[in-house]
């Protein structure tokens, strides 16, 4: 049996301690299992189905796609996100991992980023590509590059819901308070987005950014900038809160 000295030890220190192993594990949870393609298939079917309502009016179909891509995957994003941290806190697996040389910052970032990649790819990007193909076949005139770029605000919206949920999960130990905040955003968001004053002042305005990209209308970029700032704040708050959490 080899002794400890024969092994190359992990040299990550500070906030990066344990990050590589955790990041790899979280990526594998999404992309190394059937989860990514099952989610992609599910949301492709649902969003294309909704988008097909506008078969006689391709532009209406595109609008419906954006609207549905904002709301429905968001439900799954909130539910999956709350489990990511809450379940680990409650079951004890977080305490187990943190009893190893793992920084709490690395733990949180390794939850936020791989989930974000998974949500964006499986719930928005792949369904978006499939919708584009279907919509084009139905006669919609969409520029491919513009359409792909228009998916970016939708991804940011899902990231906002996901990171908000995960941030709340660092504060609370029950699903109720963790989901009570993001869900109202999800359902009020589409209406709020259309408000002339408040619409562009928050992440809810991202849908209008997406739509305006394909319609060529002018819409402020504020929602994108504001959301990026909010995402940063949510990540920082989640890290700070989790660093003082006691098991």
């Amino acid at each position, binding site marked *: 049996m080899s002794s400890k000295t024969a*092994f190359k030890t992990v040299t990550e220190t500070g906030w990066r301690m*344990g990050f590589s192993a955790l990041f790899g594990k979280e990526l594998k949870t999404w992309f190394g299992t059937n989860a990514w393609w099952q989610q992609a298939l599910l949301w492709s079917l649902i969003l294309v189905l909704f988008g097909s309502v506008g078969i006689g009016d391709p532009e209406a179909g595109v609008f419906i796609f954006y609207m549905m891509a904002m709301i429905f995957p968001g439900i799954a994003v909130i539910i999956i996100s709350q489990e990511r941290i809450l379940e680990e806190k409650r079951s*004890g*697996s977080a305490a*187990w991992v943190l009893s*190893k*040389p793992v920084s709490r910052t690395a733990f949180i970032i390794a939850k936020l980023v791989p989930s974000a990649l998974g949500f964006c790819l499986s719930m928005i990007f792949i369904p978006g590509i499939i919708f584009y193909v279907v919509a084009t076949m139905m006669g919609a005139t969409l520029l491919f590059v513009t359409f792909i770029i228009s998916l970016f605000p939708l991804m940011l919206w899902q990231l906002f819901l996901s990171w908000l949920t995960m941030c709340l999960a660092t504060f609370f130990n029950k699903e109720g308070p963790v989901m009570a905040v993001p869900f109202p955003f999800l359902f009020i968001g589409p209406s709020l987005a259309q408000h002339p004053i408040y619409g562009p002042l928050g992440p809810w305005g991202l849908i209008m950014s997406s739509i305006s990209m394909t319609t060529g209308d002018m819409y402020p970029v504020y929602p994108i900038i504001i959301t990026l700032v909010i995402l940063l704040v949510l990540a920082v708050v989640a890290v700070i809160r989790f660093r003082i959490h006691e098991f």
Partner: protein
Amino acid sequence: MSLESYVIQTDGLGKAYGEVRALNNLDLKVPRNSIFAFLGPNGAGKTTTIKLLLGLARPTMGTATVLGRNIVTDNDEIRRNVGYLAQQPTFYKELSARETLRFAAGLFFKGPKDLIEERIEYLLEVVGLEDKADRPIEGFSGGEIQRLGIAQAQVNFPELLILDEPAAGLDPEGREQVLKIMESLRAESTIFYSTHILDDVQRVSDRVAILNKGNLIAQAPIEELLVGSEGVAYVLVLEGDTQKAYSTLSAEKWVSSITERREKEQTHWVVTVVDTAIAKKRLLRTVLQDDKVDIVDFGLKQYELEEIFMRLVEEDDTNVQ
């Protein structure tokens, strides 16, 4: 014993959750290469202590070192050299036992891959999970999860293994397996484990600390603790008229007390002595001077840990009241 000989040393360590004091002024010394049992009833503060040592909670009073490092300021380094098994170990249920060990190993080592796999294989063998290594742990029994927990705690060749109730909730067979594994790991690591199963403590431990309601009420090598707080005592079972022998023996300076109990035709004495050497020579002779007394049985009183434990806890409860 030098400071370096203690792998865990706490100095007035305490933890309060608001008004509730979970741990008070704990002064614990765990010598290197020992199997140290941390004993106490449920809610005594054992798990709180372990969480403080591992940095999973912060102390509200006192200080402590693990492997010579401060638990607050140098916890990263502590966790590199410690293995930990939680009271109810929970791993990622989608992973197999092998993948769980691979994940745990990945937090310590980045290579060589073949050596990591060799280490995993070795640990699976030690805990007897080779046959189930590639099954998802979702279907594992409590005993298997516990054994996997010990294997993952050992993956980094820890100088110190901290096991929180390693045999709790297991059937007798599972308990036996866990105890055997602990004994087999004695040569590799110091083992600090919490438990409330007294039989296990007496069997595998070198030293014991007893915690009650957040207070340390005893800490000693197990043999010392088993002698009892009254000192060395002998048990005599007698027949006949013991009155005169009782008076003669009570008058001896080397006898500190005699507890008498009658059972049918027999009289049971527990004779506590202050000088073992004299007692060995003179105890029986003194009693046998009286020819009205027959000695049916004689021996050194063997305390059971349960007896000691219950007495200490009751005394502590009385003092607190």
